[in-house]
C-alpha cells in the first residue's frame, strides 16, 4: 500500500523533471559537455610557453642554452630582444611568460671554469605557471651545466634526484581531473534538481496539496529523495563509463565500493538540497541557496587545492562538506585501489550528513504542517 503511494510520488517527481524537453536537455547535455570540456581544459600542466631571450653573450654556450630550451616540448616560441626595454614590454603585455637574460661574460666564464650566471625573469601575475616554468628552466640549465668543462669534473659528486610518481606515473592530468569532475558534477546536478523540487511546488501551491494527501511526512521525504538520487546515479554511471573508455583512467579498485559509497554521497547531497528547499519560499531563493552552498563546497573540497594548504582554522569547515569525502573515495578507488576500511571511514561522515540534513528537512516540513 505505502509502496504504491511512494511509487506514484517517485514517478510524478521524475516526470516533473523530465517531461519538459528543455529541462531534459539541460539535465543530460550540459553535464556531458562539461565533463568533456573541463577535463581537457582544466589542466595545471604548463605547455606552449612563449619566451624571450636577451643574449649579450657572443660565445657558443649561450647558443647551446637557447637551443636546449627550444628543444623542450614545454616551449612554443622563442623570441629575441635587443634591449632590456623590449623584455619589459613583452612581459608587461603578457606576450611572454618568461624572459632569459644572458650576460656578456657567459661563455667566457664557462670556458674559464668559473661559475656562470643567467637571469630568469618570470611573470608573477601568473605565479603558478611561472613557478612550474622556472622548475623546467632550472632543469634545462642543470643539464647544460653538466656538459661544461667544470660540470664534467663536478658531476661525480652532484646529487642525482631520481623521481618516481606513484599511481599516475606520467602525471596525466586527466587521471586527476575526471574523477574529480565525476564527484563535482553529481553535486551540481543533485543539488539543483532537489532544491527546486520543493520550491517549485511551493510557488505553484501544489506542496500544500501534497501535504494534505494521505502521504506521511517521511513518505513525502522519500519521494523527494529517491528521484534525484536516481538521476545522480545515472550521471555517475555515465561519467564512470566516460572516465574508463574515453579518458582511459585506470579503475584499479572495486566498482562495488564506488557505487556503494555513491549512494550515501547522493543521499547527503540530496539531503542538503532538501534542507535548502525547505528553508526557501521561492524558486529563486532555492537556486541561490543551492549556489551559495555549492561554490564554497567546490572550493573547500580538496578539488582545486589540497585541504592541507588551507589555514588551520578553515580546515574544520570542510568536515561538513560531502564532496570532501567522496573525492577521496572516487580518486582513491580509481587510482589507488583504496581498501574497504578507508572507504568505510570516508563514507561514515556522508551517512551522518544525510541523516542530519534529512531529519532537519523533515522537521521543517512538519512544522509547516502545523
Amino acid at each position, binding site marked *: 500500500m505505502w509502496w504504491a503511494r511512494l511509487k506514484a510520488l517517485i514517478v510524478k517527481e521524475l516526470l516533473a523533471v523530465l517531461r519538459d524537453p528543455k529541462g531534459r536537455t539541460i539535465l543530460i547535455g550540459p553535464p556531458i559537455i562539461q565533463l568533456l570540456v573541463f577535463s581537457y581544459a582544466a589542466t595545471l600542466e604548463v605547455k606552449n610557453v612563449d619566451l624571450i631571450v636577451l643574449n649579450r653573450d657572443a660565445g657558443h654556450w649561450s647558443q647551446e642554452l637557447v637551443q636546449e630550451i627550444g628543444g623542450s616540448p614545454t616551449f612554443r616560441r622563442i623570441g629575441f630582444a635587443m634591449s632590456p626595454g623590449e623584455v619589459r614590454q613583452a612581459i608587461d603585455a603578457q606576450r611572454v611568460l618568461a624572459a632569459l637574460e644572458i650576460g656578456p661574460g657567459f661563455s667566457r666564464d664557462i670556458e674559464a671554469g668559473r661559475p656562470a650566471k643567467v637571469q630568469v625573469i618570470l611573470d608573477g601575475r601568473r605565479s603558478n605557471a611561472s613557478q612550474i616554468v622556472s622548475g623546467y628552466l632550472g632543469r634545462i640549465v642543470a643539464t647544460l651545466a653538466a656538459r661544461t668543462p667544470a660540470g664534467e669534473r663536478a658531476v661525480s659528486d652532484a646529487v642525482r634526484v631520481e*623521481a618516481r610518481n606513484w599511481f599516475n606515473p606520467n602525471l596525466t592530468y586527466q587521471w586527476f581531473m575526471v574523477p574529480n569532475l565525476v564527484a563535482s558534477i553529481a553535486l551540481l546536478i543533485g543539488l539543483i534538481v532537489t532544491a527546486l523540487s520543493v520550491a517549485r511546488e511551493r510557488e505553484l501551491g501544489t506542496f500544500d496539496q501534497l501535504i494534505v494527501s494521505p502521504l506521511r511526512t517521511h513518505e513525502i521525504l522519500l519521494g523527494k529523495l529517491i528521484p534525484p538520487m536516481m538521476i545522480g546515479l545515472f550521471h555517475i554511471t555515465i561519467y564512470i563509463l566516460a572516465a574508463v573508455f574515453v579518458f582511459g583512467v585506470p579503475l584499479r579498485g572495486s566498482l562495488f565500493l564506488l557505487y556503494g559509497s555513491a549512494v550515501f554521497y547522493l543521499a547527503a547531497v540530496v539531503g542538503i538540497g532538501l534542507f535548502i528547499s525547505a528553508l526557501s519560499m521561492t524558486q529563486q531563493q532555492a537556486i541561490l541557496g543551492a549556489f551559495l552552498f555549492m561554490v564554497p563546497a567546490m572550493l573547500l573540497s580538496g578539488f582545486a587545492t589540497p585541504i592541507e594548504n588551507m589555514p588551520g582554522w578553515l580546515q574544520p569547515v570542510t568536515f561538513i562538506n560531502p564532496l570532501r569525502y567522496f573525492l577521496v573515495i572516487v580518486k582513491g578507488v580509481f587510482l589507488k585501489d583504496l581498501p574497504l576500511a578507508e572507504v568505510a571511514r570516508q563514507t561514515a561522515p556522508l551517512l551522518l550528513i544525510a541523516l542530519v540534513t534529512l531529519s532537519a528537512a523533515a522537521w521543517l516540513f512538519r512544522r509547516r504542517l502545523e
Partner: protein
Amino acid sequence: MIVARPSRKSRGGGSRRFAALVRKEIYQIIRDPSSILIAFVLPMILLFLFGYGVSLDTTRTRIGLVVEDETPLTRDLAASFEASRYFAVIEGRHRRDFEDDLVLGRVRGLVVIPASFAADLAAGREPTVQVLVDGTDPNTANFVLNYAQGAIANWERQRSNEGLANPPAIAAEQRFWFNAELTSRNFLVPGSIAIVMTLVGTLLTSLVVAREWERGTMEAMMATPVSAAELLAGKLLPYFILGLTSMTLCVLIAVFLFDVPFRGSVVALYVLSAAFLMPALGQGLLISAVTKNQFLASQLALISGFLPAFLLSGFLFEINSMPTVIQWITYVVPARYLIPSLQTVFLAGDIWPMFAQAITVMLLIGSIFFALAARNTRKRIS
C-alpha cells in the same frame, strides 16, 4: 510594486518614463533579499575563500623522509629537508613504513636517502636521492619534486660555500616580477572579482528577467508606451550600477583586508569593469530571453557564464596549455579578457595597449549579445 506614477505622454516625458523604470528596478533590487545575497554576500564569501581558502602555495606539505643509514652527512641532508618551509617532515627508517600513508593520502610524497649515499658521495659515484610522489594530484606532485630539488640544491650550495663541494657550473637566478613573494592570493583575488561581476551581470540579471517573463510582467510592460530599448536599458542600468558597486566592495576588501597591492589607476579599474559588464549583462539578458524560465535560466547562466569564467578564462588554468579546440572556445568568454587586465591593474600598473585591446573585444562581444537578445525579445511580442 510597479511604476510609482504613470508616465504622462502629453509632457513627452521620455526621460521621466525612463527614470520611473529605473526607480522600479531599484526598488525591486532593494526589496529582494536574493539580489543583496548575490551582489554582496556571495562576493564576500567568494573573496574570502580565495583570500584564505584556495591557495596554490604549497606550504608545509607532509612528506615522509627515509634515512636508510644514519651518518653525519645524511643527517645534514635530512636537516635541510626539515628546514625547508615547504615540507612538514615525518621521519622513518624504511620506505615500507610509509606505503600505507601514501595510499591513504597521509603523506604526499616520500624522500629516500639510500644506505649507499654517503659512500657514493665520498667515492664520486653520483649519489642518488629518490623522490617518490603521489601522482593522483599532479600539481602537488610537481611541487613536491621541485621543492625536494630545491632542498637538495640548498644543501649543495651550503657545502660548496664551506668548500666541501664544487659550485654549480651555471646558476640560474630567478626573479618573479610583480609578485616577488609568489603569493597566489595576489592573482586569485583580482581574478575572483571578474567572477563576482559575472554573478551579478549574468546570473542575477538572467534570473530576474526570466522571472518577469515567467510571471508575465514583461509582456505587461511591453504593452505600455515604453519602447523596447528603454525597457531593456531601464532594466540593465540598475544592475550595471550594482555590478560596479559590488566590484568596488571587492576591491576595497582585496586592498585593505588581503593586502593585495594596487599599482594601477582607479580609472583603468572602472573602465575595464564597465566594459566587462556589457557582455556580462548582455549574456544575462539573452539567456532570460531565450529560456523565459528561472530554472533553465539559472542552469544556463551557470554553465555558460559562471563555469567558463572560472575554468576557461585563465583564472586557474593556463589557456595556452589547453587543446586548440578549447582555446577557440575561450575567445568568446568575456572573463578571459578581463582577468589578465585586472591582474595587471592590481600587480603591474596601467598598461593601456593591453587594456585597449581587452576593452574593444569585450564591447564587441557585448554588442553581439545585446543584438541577439533584442531579436529574441522582439520576436516574442509579434
